[in-house]
C-alpha cells in the first residue's frame, strides 16, 4: 500500500506530471482522422443502422481520447477518476425514462391527434425569398 501511494506515475501535487509530447501529437492526429470519418459518414450519405453506429462509435472514440489524454484522466488516481466518471452514468436513467416517455407521446399524437407517423422529410433549398417561404410555412402549419 505504502508503495502504491507513492507510485510516481500518480502525481502527488498534480503539477509535476509530464508526458512525452508524442502522445499528444498522436491523439491530435487521431482526432482529426476520426472527425474526418464522421464527416464522410454524412458526405457519402450513409443511412439507417450503419449511419447511427458509425456516428456513435466515432463520437465515443473522440470523447474517450479527449478525456483520457488531453484532460489527463488516464494519469489520475482512482479516487478522482471515479468522482469524475461515475456521476454522469446517472444520465442513463434519464435517457431511459425519456425514451419511454417519448415513445408514448409519439404514439398518442399519431393515435389520438391523427398526426402522421412517418412524415416525408423536405429537401432544403437555399434561395433568396426565404422570408416569404417562412411565412408560408407557418401559415400552412396553422398553429
Amino acid at each position: 500500500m505504502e508503495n502504491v501511494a507513492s507510485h510516481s506515475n500518480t502525481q502527488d501535487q498534480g503539477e509535476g506530471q509530464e508526458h512525452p509530447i508524442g502522445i499528444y501529437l498522436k491523439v491530435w492526429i487521431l482526432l482529426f482522422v476520426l472527425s474526418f470519418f464522421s464527416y464522410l459518414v454524412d458526405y457519402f450519405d450513409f443511412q439507417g443502422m450503419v449511419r447511427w453506429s458509425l456516428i456513435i462509435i466515432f463520437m465515443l472514440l473522440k470523447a474517450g481520447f479527449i478525456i483520457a489524454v488531453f484532460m489527463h484522466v488516464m494519469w489520475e488516481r482512482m479516487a478522482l477518476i471515479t468522482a469524475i466518471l461515475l456521476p454522469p452514468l446517472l444520465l442513463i436513467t434519464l435517457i431511459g425514462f425519456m425514451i419511454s416517455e417519448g415513445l408514448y407521446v409519439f404514439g398518442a399524437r399519431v393515435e389520438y391527434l391523427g398526426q402522421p407517423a412517418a412524415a416525408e422529410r423536405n429537401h432544403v433549398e437555399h434561395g433568396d425569398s426565404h422570408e416569404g417561404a417562412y411565412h408560408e410555412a407557418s401559415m400552412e402549419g396553422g398553429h
Partner: protein
Amino acid sequence: MSGQSLTLSQHADTMVEDWSADKETFHVPWGKVMMWIFLVSDTFIFSCFLVGYMKLRRTVTAPWPYPSEVFSLEIFGNPVPLILIAIMTFILITSSGTMALAVRAAQHRDKSAVFKLMAVTAFFGCCFVGMQMFEWSKLIAEGVRPWGNPWGAMQFGSVFFMVTGFHGLHVSCGVIYLMIVAFKVLKGDYDKKNDYSIVEIAGLYWHFVDLVWVFIFAFFYLW
C-alpha cells in the same frame, strides 16, 4: 517516470487508501478539483439539453429538416453538405491541440511559449465563434426562428439556437479566461509560488468545450 498505468488491484488499493485515510482525498491542487466539480455539473446541463433534444426527436411528427442540407454552403457553384460545421470542428480540435502543448510548456516554465500557445488557442476560439455568428446570421436571414423554419419541424430552430448558443457562450468565456491566464503567465504572477497548475486547469475547461462539441456534432448535425 510517468506514463504507465496502475494495475486494477493497485487502483483498488489507492481508492481505499484515499477515501479512508484521515487526510485530503484528491491528491491534486484544490483548483483542479473545483474545476472538475464545475465540469461535471456542466456535463449535466449540456446533457439535459441533449436528452431534451432526443425526446423532441422521438415525439415530433412533423418532418425534421435535413441538417446536412441546412448547413451546406455553396463553394464554386456546388453545394457542399455540412462544410462549415466540419471546418468549425477541425478548428476546435486544432485549438485543443495547441492548448495541450501550452500545458506542457507550462511544466517546463517556458513562459513565452505558454503565452503564444494560449494566444493561438484563444485565436482559434475567436475563429470558431466568428463562424458560428456567420452561421446564425445566415440561418436567421433564411427565416429560421426558435418557433419555426421553412423546412419542417418548428422545434429545429429552438434546439439549434439554444444548444449552439450555449456552447458558443462557453467558447467565448473560454477565450476570455485563456487570455487572462496567458497575460498573468507573461507578467510572472505565478512565479512567486512557482505554481503553474492554473494553466492545466484552464486547459481542462477548454478541452471540455471541445468535448461538448463532439456530442453536439454527432447528435445535432449528423443525426
